[in-house]
């Protein structure tokens, strides 16, 4: 489990804005993939996962504003109550922001456990909103996406950390022209 934690041993450079925006956009597209039946229920909210990653690892770049805007886009894409995702994303972002210093010292599987909690918070806040506006409880499988999301967290974290591990300039000792 020593190499499950990429951070303390490797010096990283700050993520580029283009990469942050690109990853969020890619997650949005992946969320729009059509599916049927069980696949839809098990499909994790990738936008929430990537958003959580950036809130934890670049809290001053990605915050409430981004969470809110992404939430609005998800509301349009899903055709749900306008502001429902935005509300839940902002709440989850706040919780993640409160936890981000602690989470940075954990290894990926410990983080995944916390992320499960955060995703469930996301689900519960959306559930409460919809129940308040008169929807019926969709059944316990509603929370299944959060479990898949948490399981996906180590993989996603590793992938999103990769571009930051490359050296910024040629290492010392290489001849300069």
């Amino acid at each position, binding site marked *: 489990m020593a190499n499950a934690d990429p951070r303390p041993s490797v010096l990283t*450079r*700050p993520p580029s804005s283009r990469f942050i925006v690109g990853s969020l956009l890619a997650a949005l597209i992946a969320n729009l993939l059509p*599916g049927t039946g069980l696949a839809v229920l098990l499909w994790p909210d990738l936008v929430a996962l990537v958003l959580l990653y950036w809130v934890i690892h670049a809290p001053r770049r990605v915050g409430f504003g981004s969470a809110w805007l992404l939430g*609005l886009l998800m509301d349009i894409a*899903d055709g749900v109550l306008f502001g*429902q995702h935005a509300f839940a994303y902002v709440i989850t972002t706040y919780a993640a922001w409160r936890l981000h210093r602690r989470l940075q010292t954990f290894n990926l599987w410990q983080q995944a456990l916390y992320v499960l909690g955060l995703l469930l918070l996301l689900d519960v806040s959306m559930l409460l909103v919809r129940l308040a506006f008169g929807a019926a409880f969709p059944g316990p499988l509603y929370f299944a996406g959060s479990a898949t999301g948490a399981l996906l967290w180590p993989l996603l974290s590793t992938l999103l950390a990769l571009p930051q591990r490359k050296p910024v300039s040629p290492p010392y000792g290489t001849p300069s022209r």
Partner: protein
Amino acid sequence: MNDPTPPPFFKTGLPPHLRFTIFVLLSAVLMLADARLTYLGALRQALAVFVNPLQHAVNAPVRLAGQVADFFVTHSRLRLENEELRQTRLRLSAQLLELEALRAENAHLRALLDARPRYGHTAQLAQILYAERDPFSRKIIIDRGSLHHVEAGQVVVDETGVVGQVTRAYPAVAEVTLITDKNQAVPVQNLRNGLRAVVFGSGQDGTLNVPFMPTNADLVPGDQLVTSGLDGIYPPGLPVATVVRVERNAAYPFARIACLPAAGVDRHRHVLVLRSTAPPPPRPPAEVARGKR
């Protein structure tokens, strides 16, 4: 940790708690406005212009895969299907002839009785793009929008019955709420005895129910429920549901009636969007209605 911006010492902006509160309040206002008022249509449309092309792009490979799979069907299966379709067409054309005669007779009789003519409808074929991901509602997206004269309120059917109703029309796509959605109501009539009722979706497992019917209501399992046409939205006579279970418990004021939809609500790739050729007469103003009572 790997953050390039200066520490909060130099540049802070609003404190996070405050920003959090502002955005939560903003979302709450949006939700209330969306649920209680209808001012947000324009904003929704504007954002949809950005999201819908993304959805189309994402759907394209999936649709392509379906088309490729369609291309590689066996010759014998095609021939069999062709034969079946030919027979069905023959049978239907016979029924159509009968229908034409009946329609002429009906128009004649209505003219004799001085009754209003029935409103005609034109149908438009639409393909189902995908089902919406919202687990709280039963909705589908079709590939016809306001550019193709699809409007909110139009009725969507398949060859066996009512599928749902268009609830939002975007330029190129439209959102259809299925009759199995919890908030979707269809005014119906029992084909056996003409009893009027309203069918609601149960929102759970693709079934429907008929609430607020007294325990002695004349509905038995097997009854066919068709649209009554009383609302001026659904054309009369379209099959909606079949009653499968009636529970009469004297402890409750209403009977519990479960139905199954007549249409293949979750099954088809193509549906028909009905557009009425003549608008229904305007409702009488509320004051007049109250004064008459």
